[in-house]
């Protein structure tokens, strides 16, 4: 499986950032940052609004070019990657997915195969099989012939995740995939992401607003504050009142829920 071979990178890191920064019109959104993001599992990016978490994700995608510094992806500079070649390795889901008017679920997911068949290549049986697989993974088979526009928010989010799965990338970047969803669908989408990440050995980087969701589904959490990385640790280390106050600038208490063992942060 491509996902497995891609993660067996000699350097062991998916992303290596050195002195990466981003500024617009004299405002620095991300201060020089150096770090390595390792292979598998779910990495959460948290922080207050405007902390630079989405910016960082867009630089990795790369939807923006960095103002300074370099990003290496699978031990190769980001600029050295061909567009389609890169798209086979990495999929990015923006915060607001565009409307897909007139497209059926199956058709939208099939567009995820573009990096493999290209502008003039044929959509072959292998592509079809990958699309079917992606729909099964995301339990979208009953919706295959529905219009994407007619689906609910949670279902539509699953379609975009399925499109990324059909893309067969080993790295997945998600920008607040749950921002428009109710609590049940947040759980549904995030457990799907976590499950796919572990089953298929994907490297997932996800921007999350809700620290409780981040603690529950991420293997590692990176916290940003006004463009600086202020913490990087296991979720249970992040879930400490002092740490949370540093991240969000508001006093929080942490309680442990007995039956599930989840820790929950409550603003005071």
């Amino acid at each position: 499986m491509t996902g497995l071979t891609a993660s067996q990178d000699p350097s062991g890191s998916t992303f290596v950032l050195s002195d990466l920064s981003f500024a617009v019109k004299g405002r620095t959104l991300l201060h020089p940052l150096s770090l390595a993001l390792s292979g598998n599992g779910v990495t959460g990016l948290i922080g207050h609004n405007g902390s630079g978490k989405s910016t960082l994700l867009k630089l990795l995608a790369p939807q923006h070019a960095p103002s300074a510094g370099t990003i290496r992806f699978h031990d190769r500079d980001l600029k050295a990657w061909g567009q389609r070649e890169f798209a086979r390795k990495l999929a990015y889901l923006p915060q607001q997915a565009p409307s897909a008017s007139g497209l059926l679920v199956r058709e939208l997911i099939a567009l995820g195969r573009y990096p493999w068949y290209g502008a003039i290549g044929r959509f072959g049986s292998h592509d079809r099989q990958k699309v079917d697989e992606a729909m099964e993974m995301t339990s979208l088979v009953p919706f295959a012939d529905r219009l994407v526009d007619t689906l609910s928010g949670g279902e539509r989010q699953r379609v975009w995740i399925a499109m990324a799965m059909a893309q067969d990338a080993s790295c997945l970047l998600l920008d607040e995939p749950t921002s428009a969803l109710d609590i049940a669908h947040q759980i549904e989408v995030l457990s799907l992401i976590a499950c796919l990440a572990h089953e298929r050995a994907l490297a997932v980087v996800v921007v999350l607003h809700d620290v409780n969701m981040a603690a529950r589904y991420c293997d590692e959490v990176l916290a940003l504050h006004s463009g600086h990385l202020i913490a990087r640790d296991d979720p249970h280390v992040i879930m400490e009142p002092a740490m949370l106050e540093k991240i969000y600038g508001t006093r929080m208490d942490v309680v442990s829920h007995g039956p599930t063992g989840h820790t929950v942060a409550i603003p005071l």
Partner: protein
Amino acid sequence: MVPLQMRWLEILPLGGTVAKVVGVPLARARLALLATSAAMAAVATLAAGPLSFVSLLAPHLACRIGVTRALPQLAATALIGAAIMVFADWLGRNLYFPFQIPAGLLTSLIGSPALVWMLARRP
């Protein structure tokens, strides 16, 4: 030309972000599509003379009747455009018999108010 650029026509309406994610060379694709359509319009005008507003009216009509995907819209646009031209030509020959009103003039006269009306109606 269409089969060569079909995939781009399907993906580009989803926006630049998504197109970039799946690895479409954005600038190149947009330029190529623009050049192709300009060249095809030029050839058509050379062959048939200026027939204003059909090209603006037909795709919008196709959209209106619910054909929004790239390939079906292309086919529907061609059909609607041809139908409008045949109708305009017939009208031009019969409206003021035995004199003929050029089909291009009629399409402009009827087509431009129709287009303005359609644009104004769009919410």
